[in-house]
């Protein structure tokens, strides 16, 4: 059978200039223009470094994407994974023609529609219905298409009652619902979806994810799906691409790609969260997963010692009633367990503290987990809630469940007291 390649990305690169753009650009522009006139190559294309945001570079220019190559077959659902700054968004932007590549090409046999954000172009003064038309047209639908789907869209959004009211009177949730409803009824050959789309309350989130699943499963639609949520990638995608510092480091089967992603250095990065913009006063500064030698790690064996470390700043007013807690969620968004501790059991004066929370050994079963950390005064004040900041994974290293691969046996192994006696 012939493979039907619908999208082909060839040597795609994108260069960005760092720092203040504005002053001095005229000089660079002239330099570029001068070299073009003499028939030479753009002098600024030769320089540039790989895009690692944590390392200070010498060059003003960085490659957000460098020589990306991949092919997508018709009907494939491709996941694009990578940590923040790996180039995922840049790739999406180029795919959706929002910005052009510096070098390289993308060839496509179908129309690409992208959902980088819902509700683009919503005008607060116009009614829901008018906005559906406008937004649909912006996303590339014709008026007739929208007209034929209007009923479905309104129904899906659940905003029927407000459809002739200006959008400025909507609650933010309703706006998002309506916007997503429009986006979900797009009908392109290739759909590019950013995960952040799944917004709104949990009921609607389920609906949204379900719709995405429908889109990708039914009628052989080609989908590019960008996500941090490995579970979603695993359940939706047939193939995945791992990006790191602007280059493709892995391409292939979804499960292998997710494994690769979690095992590579990348995994250690997602096991360490630094609050880039902490409050002046009390706040969480860092969260990390540590192994028994206190090294940051995102990968543990079933019987390994796992420690969650939270670095936090405590102020005078927080000490007495403040508490810090966390929740562990599994891939299916189920909370596995949680734990909370009052600060005044440990702390007497203000300062920066490390709280180390050791998990009981041999309890969490092999799978991927996410950590949610909250710092608050119960029922009074939320200081900081951090969702999905950290992923870690427990490897199958000999729990007794390894024989039952693929069976949902829960997330925790409890040491039950068994006794089997003869009658």
């Amino acid at each position: 059978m012939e493979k039907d390649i619908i999208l082909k990305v060839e040597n795609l690169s994108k260069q960005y200039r760092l720092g203040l753009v504005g002053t001095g650009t005229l000089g660079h522009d002239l330099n570029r223009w001068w070299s073009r006139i003499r028939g030479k190559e753009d002098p600024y294309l030769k320089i540039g470094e790989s895009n690692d945001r944590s390392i200070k570079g010498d060059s003003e220019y960085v490659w957000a994407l460098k020589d990306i190559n991949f092919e997508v077959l018709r009907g494939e659902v491709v996941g694009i994974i990578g940590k923040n700054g790996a180039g995922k968004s840049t790739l999406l932007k180029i795919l959706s023609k929002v910005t052009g590549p510096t070098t390289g090409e993308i060839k496509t046999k179908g129309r690409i529609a992208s959902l980088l954000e819902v509700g683009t172009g919503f005008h607060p003064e116009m009614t829901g219905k008018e906005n559906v038309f406008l937004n649909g047209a912006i996303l590339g639908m014709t008026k007739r298409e929208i007209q034929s789907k209007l009923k479905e869209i309104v129904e899906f959004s659940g905003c029927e009652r407000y459809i002739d009211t200006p959008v400025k009177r909507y609650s933010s949730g309703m706006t998002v619902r309506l916007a997503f409803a429009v986006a979900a009824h797009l009908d392109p050959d290739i759909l590019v979806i950013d995960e952040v789309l799944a917004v709104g309350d949990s009921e609607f989130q389920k609906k949204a994810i379900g719709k995405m699943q429908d889109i990708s499963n039914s009628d052989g639609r080609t989908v590019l799906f960008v996500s941090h949520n490995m579970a979603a990638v695993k359940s939706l995608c047939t193939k995945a691409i791992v990006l790191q510092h602007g280059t493709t480091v892995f391409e292939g089967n979804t499960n292998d790609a997710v494994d690769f992603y979690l095992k590579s250095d990348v995994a250690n990065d997602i096991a360490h969260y630094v609050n880039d913009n902490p409050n002046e006063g009390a706040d969480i500064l860092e969260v990390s997963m540590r192994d028994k030698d206190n090294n940051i790690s995102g990968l543990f064996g079933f019987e390994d010692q796992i420690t969650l470390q939270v670095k936090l700043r405590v102020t005078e007013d927080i000490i007495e009633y403040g508490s810090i807690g966390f929740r562990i969620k599994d891939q299916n968004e189920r909370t596995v367990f949680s734990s909370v501790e009052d600060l005044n059991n440990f702390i007497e004066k203000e300062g920066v503290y490390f709280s180390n929370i050791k998990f009981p050994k041999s309890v969490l079963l092999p799978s991927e987990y996410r950590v949610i950390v909250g710092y608050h005064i119960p029922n009074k004040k939320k200081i900081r809630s951090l969702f999905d900041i950290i992923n870690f994974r427990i490897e199958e290293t000999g729990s007794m469940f390894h024989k039952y691969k693929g069976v949902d046996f829960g997330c925790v192994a409890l040491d039950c007291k068994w006794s089997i006696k003869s009658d």
Partner: protein
Amino acid sequence: MINKNENWLYTISPKQKLIDINLKEIWFYRDLLFLFVKRNVITVYKQTILGPLWYFIQPLFTSVIFTLIFNNMANIPTGEGVPSFLFNLAGITCWNYFKECLTGTSDTFGQNQSLFGKVYFPRVIVPLSVVFTNLVKYGIQILVFIGFYIYYVFFTDKAAQSSPQKAMIFLPLLIFFMGLLGLGLGMIISSMTTKYRDLKFLISFGVQLLMYGSAVMYPLSYFKQKLPNISWVVEFNPMTTIIEAFRYMTLGVGDYSLSKMMYTALVSILLFLIGIIIFNKTEKSFIDTI
């Protein structure tokens, strides 16, 4: 095996043709153009008491003030048998159309930054929608002009000499070039402002200065007579030709010749082409520079 005779629908690449205007694509997005125009027209005066009446008020009041100051106080003649108010209204209406096209399109990238950063559609749609929106406004204001025209002709004897000329059949062409001129200039400016924001300040007072050089509140002939040394500035301004021609067609006063019309058409087309080229260049990369 991979099929070698691939016929791609389109290619995204950094290579740019000088003029890369995809008419088929613009046609595909015609509904969006229409919806943008609709949005621009209906949202401007939402939650105002007078609503669309504002479309009338602005040119009327400006004309009244101009008549008081330039004609009654400064005694600028508007031609024998032509009411100065009508003379000014004609100038203002045309000038407004050009000005709104220019200022409206000149901030295309700035105003639509968030939209352009999220979805792709032919960016030209936005400046085009501005031109069409203003065409609607212009149409409404022309109605006002016609209203006053009828009043002056049938109910007073002040407009004895003013009568529509045969050249009036070229009025649509005149409007077309006026829009083209505003669009072209606007696209050039909007593209440049993404990188050099100084232009934004220039445009706000530059347009005002330009009005004084466009024969809006005086006849070109009077300017030539009073300031013959610098009259070429006004004479070569394509807007002067358009406004003078408009007044000639409708009121029978003004400087109108085929050669001047050709000149204006040429300038408009040239500016429009330059505009398209620069706009296309900017469109692909502006999101990185803005």
